[in-house]
């Protein structure tokens, strides 16, 4: 192999590696006036996932809201948790609305950590871990019902 051919082979390898790395670490999904920036998060290695309330009143619920329209399933919960990114408290406060209807439940990871989760129909969510951490979530990629259009 000539030095020119070797250099071309090396460049191709480098490009392929960089492209693979790009796929492995999805880029931040950045928002606008009405959607927050989402930071990608590592996928949850779940041991168990359970729903406590498939449909409940959220903090912005009013008598005009019929929460029978939002009833989450285990598959939809799994879908949400695998796609949602983390958002800042600042974005949660200024950009994201509070859903009138929510669902709640619990999960356990393979490493033993547990969390209580809340998911809202406006795509906002929260993980309260038993070690005290709170992760604020938003899922711009959850485009299908029961989630509301963004």
């Amino acid at each position, binding site marked *: 192999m000539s030095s020119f051919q070797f250099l071309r082979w090396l460049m191709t390898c480098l490009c392929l590696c960089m492209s693979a790395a790009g796929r492995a670490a999805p880029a931040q999904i*950045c928002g606008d*006036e*009405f959607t927050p*920036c989402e930071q990608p998060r590592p996928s949850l290695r779940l041991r168990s996932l359970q729903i406590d309330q498939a449909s409940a009143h959220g*903090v*912005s619920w009013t008598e*005009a*809201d019929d929460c029978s*329209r*939002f009833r989450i399933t285990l598959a939809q919960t799994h879908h949400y948790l695998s796609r949602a990114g983390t958002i*800042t*408290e*600042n*974005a949660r*406060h*200024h*950009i*994201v*609305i*509070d*859903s*009138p*209807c929510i669902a709640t439940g619990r999960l356990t990871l393979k490493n033993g950590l547990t969390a209580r989760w809340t998911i809202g*129909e*406006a795509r906002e969510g929260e993980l*309260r871990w038993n070690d005290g951490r709170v992760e604020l979530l938003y899922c711009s990629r959850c485009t299908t019902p029961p989630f*509301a*259009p*963004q």
Partner: protein
Amino acid sequence: MLHFDDQGMIQDSRVQTARRPMIEHNVMDAIHGIIVHQTGGSTAASALSSYLNKGANGAHLLVDKDGTVYQTASFLRQTWHVGKLRSRCLAEHRCSPKEIKELTRFNPKAENQREAKKVVPDRYPSNTDAIGIELVGRSDAHDLYEPVTAAQNRALAWLVAEIRDTYCIMLSEVFRHPTVSRKTESEASTARWE
């Protein structure tokens, strides 16, 4: 009446300048209302610090628990403090049958888009034409905000009166955040400005 410099910053000894350009967006052509918020955090320092972060958002004014007023954004610029608008006609019982039908499905995006086509007072003041006032106040794990202090309410009443006088804003166009957008009801529920 408030006096401003050519950058839209208030010239008054009662207001400290703490401008955070990161939270300023488009030019604000007109001011039609005031929205009162609570920060969710327990100190002014934490709010002021968070406004320095890339992609941060905030309001035009910040009132500390002791009543100290900071101006954090120019009155010539919009800040993103409101979020998606709620339907005003629904709250005031004057929606058309077509709108009532559209509102039966939860679609905050479409609701906000319909509202954006209206003008105040047919819609609530929004990011495009509202001054935002943040009161420092913590919320707990159940989204319950702590009470607004007496000093904050005195400063808020003064600010609201001055802004209303300067921009000819009706008292009916001053709102708490959860009135105009879907937010937890306790935010600014103890704020008083009359």
